[in-house]
């Protein structure tokens, strides 16, 4: 097991947990999952051009987030449908552009040590995502309870949505290397969904969600190491198991 990889993954868990809290509270779980798929064609283009895959992934994610923002601003109806179509198409096109081991890595992640570009990016992105969510939490809370009340409290909803979507794109980019395009979306949804079942206020929600995400990553990484499997699928299975247990515990 590689220590730096796991440390980075745990830091990524904090970012994913905080971001995921708002994704789940805003009920955009499906849109979030679909948006994460847009990273794949970016990775494909980057590999074809012999540049770092991360650069391609970030570029298409940021573009995808801008697209979702623009759609939300202009059309009020069926945004979910458009997102579903556009980003599933992105996944299909991306799969055609990437082949073999590269495709499997891009879809499900891999566990070897990150290079220095990835380490640097991850450290910076975790800092930005965690810092911004904590800074903007009041605005995010008002916007999710009522955009109208947020407006009358001086919140610029358009700008906040843009920031939120870009932070979202950055969080997805963070987890691509370790969890892959298909599985990173789940790290934003499952731990937060579990946390929501136990939380009675905002602080509990944010803290529990981050704790759940980090726990899933650590436990999943250790189990994956024992089983000699790639960590991504194991981590997501551990997170899902946590959610199932939360269902059972609440009912009993």
């Amino acid at each position, binding site marked *: 097991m590689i220590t730096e990889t796991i440390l980075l993954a745990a830091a990524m868990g904090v970012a994913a947990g905080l971001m995921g809290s708002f994704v789940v509270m805003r009920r955009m779980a499906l849109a979030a999952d679909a948006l994460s798929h847009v990273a794949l064609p970016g990775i494909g283009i980057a590999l074809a051009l012999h540049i770092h895959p991360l650069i391609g992934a970030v570029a298409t994610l940021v573009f995808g987030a801008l697209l979702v923002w623009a759609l939300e601003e202009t059309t009020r109806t069926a945004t979910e449908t458009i997102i579903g179509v556009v980003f599933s198409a992105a996944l299909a096109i991306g799969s055609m552009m990437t082949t073999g081991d590269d495709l499997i890595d891009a879809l499900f992640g891999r566990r070897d040590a990150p290079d220095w570009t990835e380490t640097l990016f991850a450290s910076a992105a975790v800092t930005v995502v965690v810092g911004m969510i904590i800074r903007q939490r009041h605005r995010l809370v*008002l916007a999710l309870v009522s955009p*109208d009340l947020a407006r009358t409290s001086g919140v610029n909803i358009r700008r906040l949505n843009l920031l939120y979507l870009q932070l979202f794109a950055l969080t997805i980019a963070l987890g691509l290397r370790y969890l892959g395009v298909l599985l990173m979306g789940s790290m934003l949804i499952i731990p937060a969904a579990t946390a929501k079942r136990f939380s009675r206020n905002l602080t509990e929600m944010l803290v529990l969600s981050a704790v759940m995400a980090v726990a899933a990553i650590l436990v999943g990484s250790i189990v994956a190491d024992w089983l000699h499997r790639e960590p991504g699928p194991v981590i997501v299975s551990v997170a899902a198991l946590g959610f199932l247990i939360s269902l059972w515990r609440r009912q009993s």
Partner: protein
Amino acid sequence: MAPDSAATPASILDVRNLTVRFGDVTVLRDVSFSVPAATSLAVIGPNGSGKTVLFKALIGALPYEGTVQWAPGVRLGYVPQKLDLQRDVPITGLDFLRARTALAGSSDADLARTLSLVGLSRTACLRPIGGLSGGQFQRLLVAFALVGEPTVLLLDEPTSGVDEPGQERLNELVHRLEEERGLSVLLISHELSLVYRYAKTVLCLGRDGYSIGPPTTVLTGSALQDMYGTAVGLHLHDH
């Protein structure tokens, strides 16, 4: 007040030729009025006449034609008619109010004072907002509007769902704050007796156009019948 009266420096809100359309349906057509500082304007009219739409346009939540000009430095407190709330969201009343005070830079003391003003217990504030009763939630919304030292209140039927003594208390509270703090109040209400008692100016939105003036001219039987299209009984209570 004539619709085209010139904007005075003392007015806190100037609305000129406001038109709001939803597709082919025109909800508000060419509405103009202004609200002098530290006064109250009541907005009345039958269901579907565009009262709530007017407020949404005023806060910039809807696209519109015409101009809406707030005086510089205005701070709004808005109580919406209803909120479509997710029942299971883990945000408490206190989380919600703190978000507002944090952005307004006001103190916890302000918050505590406001809670006692609206008659909402601290215990109720520690519960998720989805778990509050209708009346408690309405009080929370009023508290939300009042924290952060607003200069203008926009109240869209603020006492709906609140019990009778609570309604009385909230109405008195708004009226008192208006006088003590020099607040301007824009109020949508179906209680004409209340409007008659408190409002300086009444804006009546009808199915074909609108009228504006002091309660004594707008709230007459024949004027109301024109606007509502049916006889409206106005029961005035003397206090």
